[in-house]
């Protein structure tokens, strides 16, 4: 067990560094720098001065090691887009709306997904099952900005129940949450249904029924307990995605969150912010990945962890 965790950790650290190096090389491979004077030409001395100030005149490997060294001390530099605050402050300012929306979305998606998945499996091949399966396919295949547009057209334009966007009142959460949650909800419902159906056919369920347990006891004590285990590995890695926000949802509903900075930082060649965001995503991803792996072994003793199973 310990050996397995150490192995996974080593591989995650490797991925973390690889992602940071790939990001670093990619962003420097992009032609044009953050201080290109397309709009306001600078005298060469002034430009050299700025480049020197941000350390952009040094060789790449030195820039990289300097950046990573500072990052390990939680100094992520200053965003070129908003030079008045550090990257840490910027993220601290814009992340809360994204986290709030993400948390609401996760709660809704997982709760409703579980309920729908369980109901669909218990009433297999009923109209309820078909509806859930159809909605699940819709939620997984149709982009969330399409769903978001439909919600705006229906609830804000047609019925005028909700505001079209913004982030001032509690009402603002409803539509983005629905649009954002449909995808993960569909995934949870689909996986829950399949793994419930599998568990329902298992021998221990037949035994439970044979010894005269009520249907309720069979479902809750025996089926659910076993059916929900595989969900951990499926849904764990979804969490960092939801917590870092969706560019589409935030732009349609005008939410001042983290999402849009993924696009603007790349487009404006905002090197420190790009790096910080990528490290954030990679870090969260690795953390949840490891956590769900460990949780899995604790909950399900049948799983023997070996290196080969990781892929």
């Amino acid at each position: 067990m310990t050996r397995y965790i150490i192995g996974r950790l080593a591989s995650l650290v490797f991925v973390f560094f690889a992602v940071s190096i790939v990001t670093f090389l990619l962003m420097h491979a992009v032609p044009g720098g953050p201080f290109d004077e397309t709009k306001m030409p600078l005298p060469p001395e002034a430009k050299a001065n700025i480049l020197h100030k941000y350390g952009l005149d040094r060789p790449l490997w030195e820039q990289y090691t300097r950046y990573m060294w500072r990052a390990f001390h939680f100094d992520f530099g200053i965003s070129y887009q908003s030079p008045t605050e550090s990257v840490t402050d910027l993220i601290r300012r814009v992340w809360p709306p994204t986290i709030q929306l993400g948390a609401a979305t996760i709660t809704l998606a997982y709760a409703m997904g579980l309920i729908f998945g369980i109901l669909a499996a218990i009433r297999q091949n009923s109209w309820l099952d078909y509806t859930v399966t159809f909605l699940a396919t819709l939620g997984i295949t149709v982009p969330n900005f399409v769903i978001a547009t439909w919600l705006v057209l229906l609830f804000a334009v047609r019925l005028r129940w909700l505001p079209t966007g913004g982030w001032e009142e509690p009402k603002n959460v409803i539509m983005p949450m629905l649009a954002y949650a449909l995808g993960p909800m569909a995934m949870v419902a689909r996986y829950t249904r399949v793994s419930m159906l599998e568990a329902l056919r298992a021998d221990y369920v037949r035994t439970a029924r044979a010894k005269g347990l009520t249907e309720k006891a069979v479902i809750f004590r025996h089926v659910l307990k076993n059916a929900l285990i595989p969900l951990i590995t499926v849904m764990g890695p979804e969490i960092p995605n939801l917590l870092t926000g969706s560019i589409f949802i935030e732009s349609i509903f005008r939410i001042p969150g983290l999402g849009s900075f993924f696009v603007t930082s790349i487009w404006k060649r905002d090197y420190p912010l790009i790096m910080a965001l990528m490290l954030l995503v990679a870090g969260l991803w690795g953390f949840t990945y490891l956590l769900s792996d460990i949780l899995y072994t604790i909950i399900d003793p049948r799983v023997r962890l070996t290196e080969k199973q990781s892929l």
Partner: protein
Amino acid sequence: MTTDISETLASSPATPFTKQRQRTLWQDAMRRFSRNKLAMGGLIVALLLILTAIFADILAPYPYDKAVLSEARQFPSAKHWLGTDAIGRDLLSRIIYGARTSLLVGFLVQAVAFSIGIPLGSIAGLRGGKFDFVVLRAVEIMTAFPSLLFALFIMSVLGTGLFNVILAISVTSWVPVCRLTRAQLLTLREKEFVAAARAVGAREMHILVRHILPNALPPLIIMLTLGIPTAIFAEAGLSFLGVGINDPLPSWGKMVGSSAAYLRVYWHLGLFPTFMIAITTLSFTFVGDGLRDALDPTLNM
């Protein structure tokens, strides 16, 4: 494991039943597929969309780039069935040509993904060793890297445009293909029918082409079909953000993105393109799901 033995018999050149048995596997799948209403519906819609894309020149009432400023932002009417956009271009024509953009991206991305993913995955799966290690690590890194961000990076290097979009999406889409191919080969390599073929003295190349690849095919076909809507989705997303297809070429995603600001009044600008994106991705997904049920009835998804 009776099926494995019968398959070995079926595809081994020594038995006279070869051709007949192999055909029935696919015929069975065909029969199962044609009984699936959702899948058949999806197939019909997908074929209609493909025809629309091919015959866009004949079907569209106006050229997709003809802007008549005096007719800007009109609601649906007899003259413009779906209305006009912000600079007076006929929305119906743009939606019809948009099918061409979407499907072109969908199919070409899959073509690139498969021509990279399958060779890489098979060599990694068969050779193992150092090559396998390197491929596995590459796959791991690409999985950790959010694919939308990767595409954004590539787009900011290459600039916007149709073929750059295809390239940017392909860069990440070979990863699942490679993973699946490798996993398939690793499992199939250990199967009894491969051992049996080896025992009767078949050459490695023969085993690979005649025994392993045909068995690895069904899941790959399913992945191919389901990858098309994913690529269409990705193109729509990039274009929505304004970093995809260049004007005046129409893209449904771009239409949705640029309609967001006027949605309160000009509902038609948002409704019709979103409808098309949904119809397209859904129809291909239903075909893919139907194929999965037809080719691998044991899966029961």
